[in-house]
């Protein structure tokens, strides 16, 4: 049952967006998120929405995959919408006893929901079109400037990729330990939350022990292969900008420019 979990929701396809340099896509996500906060205006959201739909189209990722990402935040979305509708002061549209709905409240709630939905769809598009490996490579390269203030960027990226490598192994191991404990009469399925949580203890302890042992083995193996951190290391697959990446940057800047123009001349 645990085997079905897939981590990293990469959707394999052969689109231009898939082939873009991960740095471009990270930059795109950042700019897109910033652009959503330019202001609560129908034009701004409209342009952002059209741009997002265009990108989704080009990426050939089915829309339902992208919508799937929204499931996780549906509760958060509901909360913010409900609170905004009922608790904002302003021109009252209608009221039932003490509960009132205001015009401003509805506007803010809708704007908020749209912003959140676009935000999540935009960042899902990035994770759906970038392999976890490219993502860590991209992060390592784009955050390289942090090395100046002694942030161990390479080491963090290495840890991320090792984590990705070991997730399926640890899932398999959890499965194995679970079966072993069940064979001895452990019960993971019945009872309330507390009982279930307690039942996890005999699962987690052996899992942690084995994970630590694996980490030790892996560290030894890495040292034996002359791993000594990021300094002096070359790359087998170095990130290189191609023409399409330059083009993508142009598109992103054009998008940002349009959004700012809209903000300055239309909204204000």
């Amino acid at each position, binding site marked *: 049952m645990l085997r079905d979990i897939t981590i990293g929701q990469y959707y394999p396809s052969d689109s231009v967006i898939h082939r873009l340099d991960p740095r471009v896509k990270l930059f795109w996500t950042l700019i897109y998120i910033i652009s959503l906060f330019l202001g609560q205006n129908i034009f701004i959201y409209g342009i952002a929405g059209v741009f997002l739909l265009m990108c989704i189209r080009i990426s050939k990722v089915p829309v339902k995959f992208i919508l799937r990402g929204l499931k996780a935040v549906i509760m958060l979305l509901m909360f913010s919408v409900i609170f905004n509708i009922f608790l904002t002061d302003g021109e009252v549209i209608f009221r039932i006893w003490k509960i009132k709905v205001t015009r401003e409240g509805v506007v803010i709630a809708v704007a908020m929901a749209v912003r959140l939905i676009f935000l999540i769809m935009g960042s899902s598009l990035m994770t759906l079109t970038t392999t*976890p*490996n490219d993502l860590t490579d991209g992060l390592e390269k784009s955050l390289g400037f942090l090395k100046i203030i002694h942030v161990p960027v390479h080491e963090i990226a290495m840890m991320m*990729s*090792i984590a*990705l*490598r070991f997730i*399926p*192994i640890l899932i398999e191991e959890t499965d194995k330990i679970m079966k072993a404990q069940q064979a001895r009469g452990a019960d993971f399925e019945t009872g309330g939350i507390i009982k279930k949580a307690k039942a996890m203890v005999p699962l987690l302890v052996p899992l942690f022990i084995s994970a630590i042992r*694996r980490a030790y*083995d*892996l560290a*030894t*193996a*890495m*040292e*034996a*292969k*002359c*791993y*000594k951190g990021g300094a*002096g*290391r*070359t*790359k*087998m*697959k*170095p990130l290189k900008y191609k023409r399409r990446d330059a083009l993508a940057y142009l598109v992103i800047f054009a998008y940002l420019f349009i959004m700012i123009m809209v903000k300055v001349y239309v909204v204000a």
Partner: protein
Amino acid sequence: MGIVKSEDLTFEYIIRDDDDNVENVKTAVDHVSLDIEAGQFIAILGHNGSGKSTFAKHINALLTPTEGTIWVDGIDTKDGDRLWDIRQTAGMVFQNPDNQIIGTIVEEDVGFGPENLGVPTPEIWERVDASLEAVGMTEYRHHSPNKLSGGQKQRVAIAGILAMKPKCIVLDEPTAMLDPNGRKEVIATITKLNKEENVTVILITHYMDEVIGADKVFVMDEGKVVLEGMPKEVFSKVELLNTLRLDVPQTTELAYRLEKAGVPIRRGILTIDELTTELKKLRAGL
């Protein structure tokens, strides 16, 4: 001096209690002196706790001797400045295939060693291609290591070491966690590397069948080398091996029992072919 030479190599594990006081000292390797020639296939045998793995870790400078010295390609492993030279000269393959693969794709894992050495990118690709070819894993280069069998994972691990162009490969019980097919794959691969690429192979194992093809066998017990020689010589000492809790290959065992039962058969028979020719000769003689 050979590629690996040790003189009075001793290593002690110090066991401390909670207050950091020395509770016990365990001598894992006890005054081992040996000399391994370049290009040979060497096997080190011993049951669990005989110190063979501890010794292997000294060849890669993962451990440094408490006493005595070990030289790898003429470099003293105590020389901290040349640590990375030593590790490049003597690559090491470990027991658990899962815990030594770092990359999420086969070819990336093979490239990990050369990346660490600072090899330029085009050469990394050449090395990766050649190494995967040498272990016969080229067709799996884009696969995730998680989807491979144990034997295949171990071959990827060997390719990862090969890509660092070592003079010598130390394999620390590489087959202990594999099924019989995987074991055969791995042994065939390292035998081929030894013969064709002329890499020195040091195989640490407790499976007797794997060492028949070795040029020289060292048997360790309680941290000491108790027996050394050609496989033939070593396996002719069936009683001694039994007292060391080691089995001899089945064929050798059969020949030994026949001899005990009064059949005039020569000692040190290792393979089935040898045994059949010997038995045929006997029958013709009767």
